[in-house]
């Protein structure tokens, strides 16, 4: 039988005989706040994510977002969707709108098994994003009560609707941004830079191996 606590002290004591105590506080280096031009960030984001197999769309206000969403749903021939409780989606009145257009927005389940069932059966998952990183074309989702993890993963297509103001230059600015509240990181923070990808068979790049085959990011000005 294993005794984790005994093991802990055995392992740590053995290591400490040869270790050096850290000479600096264990704190992230915070990148300097830079003034950034949102249009430049958008164009860099768009270029990077497109190169990685994603689709990036910029729209004016609410109507534009709903319209381009509808077009995507048509293109995907999607009948059912799961959507997150993100505030952007709520402001758009997304659920009501999709319902009037004949798309079945599946009910958000509170029971984990039922929730899995809906996410695995939906055609599209629609979410917001907490940040977007320009240099890599990455969206960052803080998973939590209003942002379940499987919404952006289990359906074969993922659409993220993001306010343009969420754009940051890169991952270093992200660390700076979440720096002051580091202790309150969400249970899972996911960085998404394209659809699910593999090159495990004969080095051939193929999208949609397990997760979404398609990723769309709609930026609202």
């Amino acid at each position: 039988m294993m005794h984790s606590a005994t093991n802990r002290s055995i392992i740590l004591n053995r290591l400490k005989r040869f270790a050096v105590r850290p000479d600096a506080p264990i704190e992230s280096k915070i990148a300097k706040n830079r003034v950034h031009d949102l249009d430049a960030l958008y164009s860099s984001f768009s270029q990077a994510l497109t190169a990685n197999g994603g689709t990036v769309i910029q729209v004016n206000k609410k109507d534009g977002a709903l319209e381009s969403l509808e077009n995507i749903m048509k293109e995907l021939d999607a009948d059912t969707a799961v959507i997150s409780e993100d505030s952007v989606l709520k402001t758009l009145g997304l659920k009501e709108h999709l319902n009037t257009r004949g798309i079945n927005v599946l009910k958000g389940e509170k029971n984990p098994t039922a929730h899995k069932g809906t996410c695995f059966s939906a055609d599209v998952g629609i979410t917001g994003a907490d940040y977007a990183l320009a240099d890599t074309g990455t969206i960052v989702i803080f998973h939590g009560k209003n942002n379940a993890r499987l919404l952006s993963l289990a359906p074969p297509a993922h659409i993220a609707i993001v306010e343009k103001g969420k754009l940051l230059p890169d991952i270093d600015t992200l660390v700076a941004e979440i720096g002051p509240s580091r202790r309150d990181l969400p249970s899972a923070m996911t960085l998404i830079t394209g659809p699910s990808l593999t090159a495990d068979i004969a080095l051939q790049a193929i999208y949609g191996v397990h997760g979404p085959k398609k990723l769309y990011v709609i930026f609202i000005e």
Partner: protein
Amino acid sequence: MVVIEPETNNFRELVRENLANEQQRKLLGDFSLILKALRDFSFGEMADGHAALQGGQKIREYAVNSLPYLLETFEENATKAGAKVIWARDAREANAFIISLAKEKGADLCVKGKSMVSEEIGLREELIKNGIDTYETDLGEFIVQLAGKRPFHIVGPAINMSVDEVSCLFNQVLGFDKTQNPVDLTMAARIFLRDKFEGAQIGITGANMAVAETGSIILVENEGNIRFSTSAPETHIAVVGIEKVVPTLSDATHMLKLLTRSCTGQRISEYVSVITGPRKAGEVDGPEELYIVILDNGRSRIYADEAMKSALQCIKCGLCAAVCPVYTHVGGYAYGWVYSGPIGAVLNPLLLGLGKAKHLYQATTLCGACKDYCPGGVDIPNILLSLRERAMAGDRSLAADRPPVRQKIFYCLWTWVLMDRLRYKIVSKLFRMVLRIAGVGKLPILPAGLSGWTQCRNMPQPAKKSFHDLYAETSKWMAL
């Protein structure tokens, strides 16, 4: 300590077999060229790629030097976030804990993300042996599992297999129709594994990094299988080698930039998960419980050895294999165990014991390409030299074999000869004479007892005159 029997001492046979595989050799050549080009391009894009590389090496060196203190901070913060941290000294303990946990949960289906450390402890085999249906979900690793092989490369475990081989495998084992289209094969795996993701009670992963500052683990992938394994099942178990810890989140993001660029030449992978504790109240997915198993399994022994310590700075990017002249000829199977390429030539002997992997550290050119490219700052060429020296000396602390008596006598005699000028002169003259007579033909092979030396190279004909003779003559001539 090791569950799967390593074949590390069959190196010669494995090399011979693998060198004969023309298709594999061609693939290795392409793989190396493509990866190097992608890697160089992605580093070239950085503001200062070289400085970034050096920065990463410093972070890893610092992290390894302060390892136990960082582990304590990591444990404290991970526990605060609600994770359960378990310490295991070896493979047996880690496996036993995970299996008893799975049984306690009544689990019968388990999905796994690709993890070198779980490969090292033979976790999948143990789970299956104990009646828990376990699936590798990384496509390459899934193929490896179905084929019953070892990973061919740290990052691309099945890159050596042709479309046809994978197709036959899927046809035989899973009953899918044969196809020459890799897209169809990929979709077949998608269909097969989707139910597993939905139904599994347990998800098992490794971790690319453990962040002391936040108590988070970071998982890097392209496929999304790790996201599924850490989102769908009610229990997530992460097996983490003690060396995986980095001080801060900013250190982690720096290493992330180097890791993805070195692995696949990507600026960032498709998915990066930063996991801090299990799901919180009100969340509908993510595991109810997160267990982080911190595993030693021989690493603290490496840590205690100053000459070997930097091996723990490895971040398992696999780049050293792609730039290695040995790996790119013999391939991953020749290394006989979990780790392949230059880092395999270091880690396999260190983890298994020198006596169980006698050839790996000898079969290197010491060209140093691995060290030049290494984002973790592992001094592979020097470790290889130290391993040779320790093996020669029969170092018990690294479980080296006792050197053969014949070898000992030979070196004693050799030293005795070299200690005295006259002795050296007489013996070398004799030796040259014998060689000349024996080698009247073309290529003398040394007689039994010394034949090992000429197994892979020719014994050169000695020159007509020795250096000493020439020197004496020249000195006379110079004096004129």
